[in-house]
């Protein structure tokens, strides 16, 4: 059963220096939900979080918390704690005092503070670090202190702005599990921001795909992956072949010079559309059985499957298959009707090309690696 709405953003817009950063955002966040804002750098994720935390006021639109409008409520009176994008640990306090900060403001007894900080240190795997000065911690350790500092207050909502960005892959995976477990155990609503689509898909109950200050799609990870609403969503989440096509009539799409059966309907006659086909939904067949015929340009072994780039009439497709295909071979392509996703043209359509310049395109659209500026060296000794 769906939990009640805890936070509601209604028609939120925000611009800085005349530049629109958030454009009419509507979002419902349910109690105990793990919701993730996902999108490329600069799309307004942090700004959305800051509006919920009370650090920015929207130019227009309202923020509701448990049904009450909280636009003008200062941050310290909101039942929300934040793990900031760059930690913001207090440099004049040691690890213990950083974590104890919120509890001291609440004037808890020294004994209770001690117990709760200890618990938190255990939770984030920093036992024995109490007396350490925060400037002597590695990036990953600082990040864990930041998580503990927010979590110890037992907030109703925890805002996390790319909390794992500075960690190495192994630690990131561990912390992902850890955070997910914490969330399940504490029933705290998590609003999580990330660039990393895999992180978003594995951790969240709900994913919110954002681009250029607008929400593109809201849905469960499975829905977002299987039913992307537009070419942007499809391209940002996982791999997709996105091809220009025309919807001839209901259930009939034309692309690559051929007419295909599909399950989509409700488009105008001959409406130009984006056709999205996931690489794993494309079958390699002998040429004579192929709906399309192409030439293999490149084959890469990926462990479980091969990633094959096929040139069909100068459009490069990506296909994932478990069967080996030889480079330079001519192959047939077979696509089931339910693998063809027809999408209305959006302004992102023109931005998205085929797989001929695969790596560059990925960087331009997702920037996943750009923010990992801090090398994540971990010191466990001590």
């Amino acid at each position, binding site marked *: 059963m769906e939990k009640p709405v805890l936070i509601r953003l209604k028609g939120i817009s925000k611009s800085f220096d005349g530049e629109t950063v958030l454009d009419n955002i509507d979002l419902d966040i349910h109690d105990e939900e793990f919701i993730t804002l996902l999108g490329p750098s600069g799309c307004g994720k942090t700004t959305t979080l800051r509006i919920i*935390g*009370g*650090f920015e006021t929207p130019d227009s639109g309202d923020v509701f918390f448990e049904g009450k409008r909280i636009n003008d409520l*200062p*941050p*310290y009176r909101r039942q*929300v*704690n*934040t793990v*900031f994008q*760059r930690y*913001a*640990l*207090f*440099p*004049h306090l040691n690890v213990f005092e950083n974590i104890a*900060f*919120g509890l001291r*403001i*609440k004037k808890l007894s020294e004994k209770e503070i001690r117990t709760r900080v200890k618990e938190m240190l255990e939770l984030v795997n920093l036992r024995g670090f109490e007396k350490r*000065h925060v*400037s002597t911690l590695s990036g990953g350790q600082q990040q864990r202190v930041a998580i503990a*500092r*927010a979590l110890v*207050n037992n907030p109703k909502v925890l805002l996390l702005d790319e909390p794992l960005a500075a960690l190495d892959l192994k630690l990131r995976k561990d912390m992902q599990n850890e955070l997910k477990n914490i969330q399940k155990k504490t029933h705290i609503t998590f609003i999580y921001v990330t660039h990393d689509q895999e992180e978003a898909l594995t951790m969240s109950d709900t994913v919110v795909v954002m681009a250029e200050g607008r929400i593109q799609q809201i849905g469960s990870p499975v829905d977002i992956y299987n039913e992307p609403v537009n070419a942007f969503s499809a391209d940002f989440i996982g791999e997709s072949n996105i091809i220009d096509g025309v919807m001839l009539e209901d259930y009939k799409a034309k692309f690559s010079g051929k007419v295909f059966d599909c399950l989509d309907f409700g488009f105008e006659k001959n409406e130009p559309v984006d056709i999205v086909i996931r690489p794993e939904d494309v079958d390699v067949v002998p040429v004579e059985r192929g709906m399309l015929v192409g030439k293999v340009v490149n084959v890469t072994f990926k462990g479980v499957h091969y990633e094959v780039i096929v040139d069909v009439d100068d459009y490069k497709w990506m296909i994932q298959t478990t069967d080996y295909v030889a480079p330079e071979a001519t192959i047939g392509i077979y696509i089931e009707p339910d693998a063809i996703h027809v999408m209305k043209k959006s302004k992102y359509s023109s931005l998205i090309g085929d797989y001929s310049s695969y790596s560059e395109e990925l960087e331009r659209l997702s920037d996943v690696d750009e923010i990992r500026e801090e090398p994540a060296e971990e010191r466990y000794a001590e």
Partner: protein
Amino acid sequence: MRSNVRYRSLLERAAAAPHMVWSILFIVAPLFFVLYFAITDAEGHITLNNLASLTDYSNIFLLSVSFALIATIICLLIGYPLAYFMSRTGKTTRRVLLLLLMLPMWISLLIRTYSLMALLDNGGLLNSLLVSLGFGRIRIIGTGGAVILGMIYDFLPYMVLPIYTVLTKLDPRYIEAAADLGCNSLQVLGKVIIPLSLPGVISGITMVFVPSISTFYISQKLGGGAFDLIGDTIERQFQHPSTYHTGAAISLVMMILIIISVAIMNRFSDSNSGGFVV
């Protein structure tokens, strides 16, 4: 690589040479003379009499320390809020205030003190104004208050500027983090802003206290000769060769006092956040 390093260190040493010569001529040598005069008598024999005779001056020391302390505390009480306001206000207001604060620093201390005298004198601007408004005259020059006022007037910028610098560099994320963790604005000030601006405060205190305790001009002009501070006493001793030795002894003790107070101040500022204090 090696020769490169040696070449550089040679160059560095050459660059430092003028400063070394300067320091030896004008800092180390005078210090040595102060020490020498302080522990010798007129015939050049080593003696502790000069230092022993300083007990006669203990009242002067006490008065100087209390005047300097009061001036420093008032400077801090005025200076911190001013610096805080400047660091948070808009660009234009900030520039104007900064200019107003720096402007007097471009004028010689003597001239500034004189102008303050002209303002506060019995026949000065303030009293003329009071009289023309139908109030009586008030005597300011010649009171202890005038001396302290002079110190505050002359040294306030040295309190404000270091605090202002630290406050403008303070990362707003710390303020946000504190607010996020439940601090209202007063608590943010007490728990985060003030502790993080402590290095500026320490340096401001040092930069006001040290000149206040050693000044001689302010007390002579504004105190109307009624207040003998250490600076005045030292100056008087050095006006006649026969009392050089006492003067040197007083100077030595004062230097030691200043060094001790600066050391105490440095203790307060965190080792990791210091850097301002000399």
